[in-house]
């Protein structure tokens, strides 16, 4: 997925010369023409569906679409029991066709491949069927041809009440993985006194392996079906970890805190969460944990008062016990917002602004902590719990950036406000400058021609080692249909820039590829008030071998 959407569409340019797309659909095995193939071209567009063109192949397999707008299209032909495979071209796993103005593709060879099926059953150690197990076929070589998996080929399935599943898709060699759709209860494991053990299954690779290396390859034949049985491997509960601790500072009365546990595969990036109740003695336990990075915190709502503990982050590779969480009240944060150069008081611009705190590592679902800024630039934010926060000004003036941030007179270096201290709250000072840098220019294809009617984006990177897609909207710009990009309000500093063409650039969904590509670009400096004009070439497959530039 590129952005959040499932399918991306591009708006073809207007008033350009019409294009056409014709060809023959054949069966890739028999080489015979295929009639009745539903040939579809779906225009890429960032915001809304683009135009959709289609044709049905005739008895000779011929299809023809005329009067098309030039642009990039996803090619999604359909025929029951068949799949369209195309060698992988770029970052997006979707077969595509790009038509230039006035271009007439007359003899496109559309080869449809009979689908293969992997069917079978998932059973437990007694041979009893297991329901709601998710089964996935993982292609042996990741660079193989791609097809529109989500449309008609199903590359994953869930077992039914007989433990049965059926996956159909591109023929080839696969590993098949079964993952129990376990509803992991938060509570402690159930107690057994009859000598049996709770059935807990780990992800199992066909036929009964814990890992891919010990798995057997399944060959899914063209136009045929292969039948397999996966025997799930029970996990011993001993291997799972436990984290326990105690919540201190629980107020007298009826309020009972709850403890939230966030987890993830790397420090500071938490993708999952669960919670546990706290006993009358303040104790809590999380069991069945996997090794990884965790963040644990407690909250307690007692009437209108809300108590919260600072979060404790830890890496778990064994059991952790006696984690202490101290509940404290919330504090008030007061402060001033200065927009450098703007008059204050009655002469201040009338635009309403607010200052917002966002808890670091939060999933964005928490309640908003924000305060309105008055004419004198003063604001206060009530009931701020302990924690680490990033500070945002909404809205930022045109071309502005946050120039400095102080907490109780001390500059805050990395923009993260650390309020994990004994007395909550504090006083902050924010200075915003309207003189952010501006960078703009054209995006060029690998031959140096201006890019148009493509799906592309430009990333502005301050630290190549930390670059991520989707992390920070303001440092990512979509390329306009006429091939332009622009950034405003850039904080002075050193940057690199990376342009990605979704259909032809390497797969930047791989974080390492993205970091490597970013490191190989030229660094440049942006000073306050700079207006930089800079054309940029999209990264190509061969750039993945480039050396980092200092």
């Amino acid at each position: 997925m590129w952005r959040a959407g499932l399918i991306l569409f591009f708006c073809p340019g207007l008033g350009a010369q019409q294009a056409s797309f014709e060809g023959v659909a054949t069966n890739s095995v028999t080489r015979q023409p295929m009639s009745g193939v539903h040939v579809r071209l779906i225009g890429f567009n960032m915001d809304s569906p683009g135009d959709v063109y289609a044709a049905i192949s005739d008895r000779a397999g011929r299809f023809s679409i005329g009067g098309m707008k030039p642009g990039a299209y996803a090619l999604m032909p359909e025929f029951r029991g068949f799949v369209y495979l195309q060698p992988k071209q770029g970052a997006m796993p979707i077969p595509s066709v790009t038509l230039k103005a006035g271009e007439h593709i007359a003899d496109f060879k559309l080869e449809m491949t009979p689908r293969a099926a992997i069917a079978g059953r998932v059973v437990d150690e007694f041979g009893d069927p297991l329901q709601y197990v998710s089964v996935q076929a993982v292609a042996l070589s990741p660079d193989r041809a791609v097809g529109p998996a989500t449309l008609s080929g199903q590359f994953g399935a869930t077992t039914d009440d007989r433990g049965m599943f059926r996956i159909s898709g591109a023929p080839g060699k696969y590993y098949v993985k079964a993952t129990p759709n376990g509803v992991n209860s938060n509570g402690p494991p159930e107690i057994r006194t009859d000598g049996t053990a709770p059935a807990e299954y780990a992800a199992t690779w066909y036929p009964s392996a814990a890992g891919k290396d010990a798995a057997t390859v399944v060959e899914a034949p063209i136009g045929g079906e292969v039948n397999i049985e996966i025997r799930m491997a029970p996990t011993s509960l001993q291997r799972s970890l436990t984290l326990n601790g105690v919540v201190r500072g629980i107020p007298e009365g009826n309020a009972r805190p709850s403890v939230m546990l966030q987890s993830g595969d790397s420090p500071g990036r938490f993708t999952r969460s669960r919670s546990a109740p706290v006993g009358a003695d303040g104790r809590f336990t999380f069991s069945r944990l996997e090794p990884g990075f965790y963040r644990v915190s407690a909250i307690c709502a007692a009437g209108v008062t809300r108590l919260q503990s600072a979060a404790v982050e830890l890496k778990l590779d064994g059991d952790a016990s006696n984690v202490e969480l101290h509940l404290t009240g919330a504090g008030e944060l007061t402060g001033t917002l200065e927009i450098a150069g703007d008059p204050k008081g009655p002469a201040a611009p009338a635009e309403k602004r607010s200052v917002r705190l966002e808890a670091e590592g939060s999933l964005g679902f928490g309640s908003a902590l924000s305060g309105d800024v008055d004419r004198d630039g003063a604001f206060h934010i009530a009931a701020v719990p302990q924690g680490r926060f990033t500070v945002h000004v909404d809205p930022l003036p045109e071309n502005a950036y946050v120039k400095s941030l102080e907490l109780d007179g001390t500059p805050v270096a990395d923009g993260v406000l650390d309020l994990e201290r004994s007395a909550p709250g504090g006083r902050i000072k924010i200075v915003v400058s309207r003189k952010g840098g501006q960078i703009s220019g054209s995006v060029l294809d690998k031959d140096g021609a201006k890019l148009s009617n493509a799906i592309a984006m430009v990333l502005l990177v301050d630290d190549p080692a930390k670059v991520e897609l989707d992390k920070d909207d303001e440092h990512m710009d979509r390329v306009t249909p006429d091939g332009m990009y622009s950034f405003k309000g850039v904080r002075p500093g050193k940057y690199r820039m990376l342009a990605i063409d979704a259909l032809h650039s390497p797969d930047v969904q791989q974080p390492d590829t993205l970091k490597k590509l970013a490191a190989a670009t030229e660094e440049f400096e942006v000073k306050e008030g700079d207006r930089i004009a800079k054309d940029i070439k999209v990264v190509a497959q061969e750039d993945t071998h480039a050396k980092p530039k200092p």
Partner: protein
Amino acid sequence: MRNRNHSALAVVAVAACGMAVAQTAPPAADEKPASVSGVVTNSVTGEPLLRAHVTLRGGFNPSNQTPQTYGAMTGAEGKFSITALRPGSYSVSAERIGFEMAAFPDGGTTTQVTVKSGDTKDDLKLKLVPDGAIAGRVVDADGEPMEAVSVTVDTGGFGGGQGTITDDQGHFRIGGLRPGKYRIKATPTNLPIPAEIRTDGTVEVHYAATYYPRSLDGKGATKINVAAGGEVTDADIKSIRTPIVRVSGTVTGIPQGSRNVSLMVQQGSGISSGTQVKPDGTFELWRLDPGKHTLSATWRNAGQALQTAPLEIDVAGSNIDHVELRMVAPSDISGIVQFEDEQAKPQARPQQQGQGGQQSEPPKPPQRLFLRPPSGFLSGGQQQAEIAADGSFTLRQIQPGRYQVTLSWNNAYVKSLRLGQAGMEGRTLDLRNGSAGAALTVLVSSGVAEVSGTVRNGDDPAGGKLVALVPDPADGTRPFTARSGPDGAYRFSGIAPGRYKLAVIDDADQGAAMSDAGLDDYEDALEISIGAGEKLAKDLKVRAGEGK
């Protein structure tokens, strides 16, 4: 205050915010473990079931430690045993693939067992009913099989109905079904893309979600009767062709320079479509199924959210253009509750008695006012405000829309509302244009009504039947449901006067009864009108069997 009395029964109330009210005490030193054993059988054949998983889930116990879960597997003769059990109250259930817990006379599928210190309970009898299945084919207008069609059990959108996807021969099979009557629906994979442009003379064909055997709406669906352990194998669905419809319009009031405005579409209580609003505020939606849909656009920017009031459109055979949605800032609404009479005030609840023990005064939970949006995803959750001693309350950050105002105590109902100068009869609060800072006055009356009667099957009283009472017309709020007792008796008390529909419903339709359709599918639902303070007696009949 911590209560040191060991025998005091815990007064348990779990509030939505995860706060628990409980009297607590340390575990008693003389507490002896208890044990529970029994047998699990097939409710149809009476045969014992091997390798069934029995669980005892602890609620709150006298010593109020963390609730504990015990488990066991049945062995030969279906027997299980759990020893060294901490005394307390447990909910008991058993599971085995291909089976469901058989319903108890009260209609529930779990039972409670309470064990005291040293108790031995060795006569627990658990019955599992074998699952049924529905299988068939989905075909198009020419009778050709349709692939990758999602076939689901229609629950009215509540609780994921079981489902599957047709294979390349158009076949499907939904297993794991508790015996009952089911409505199934086939939804083709339709990308939300514009109508195709074709220059080869062919015409695009489009199919809408279709109910078994061939209906666009639930009303025309035939329910399929699945017996315990039974399999229906010929549930073929013939998909219905519909025109491709475009819905387009504009979203206004988007904060300047914002890009991330998304539009969601809800049908029934599921999301039926969605799109990104273009930078110029316009949007286009394609291929909505026929029927009523609700549209709402949302702009979200970390922590802040603006949305439009939900707008209902009725999709039929032609395009709907020029739809206008306006973003309205969420409202903070202050107001006051006024009591029409003394009796409308919250009554002190009868003290829950401990087992002979004294009990400290439980704190009075604050009374609340609720704003219930129509069911579904678009309208967000229920909002609430505490009512202070002087009757004042403040609701915060209420998004535009229509809400039902209800109370946390049940000896009164909301008779009328006034927002600023605008009076509103009944409990529907119209905030589609926001509140414009106006104060809300809620007039509360004690004239609640009651409906009661007996459910009969022929001349015999029918126990364990689900009875639903839904406002007429349905306003999307949760219907009242009750189960008839062993003597067939049911009762709804504390209801607001007004018009209702009343019917005995299938368990599988609990969700559907909550949707906009309400009890529309139940042609024999009684239409009743209840006056203030009225006590209405209505006997009900179980419907004759239907379906196949």
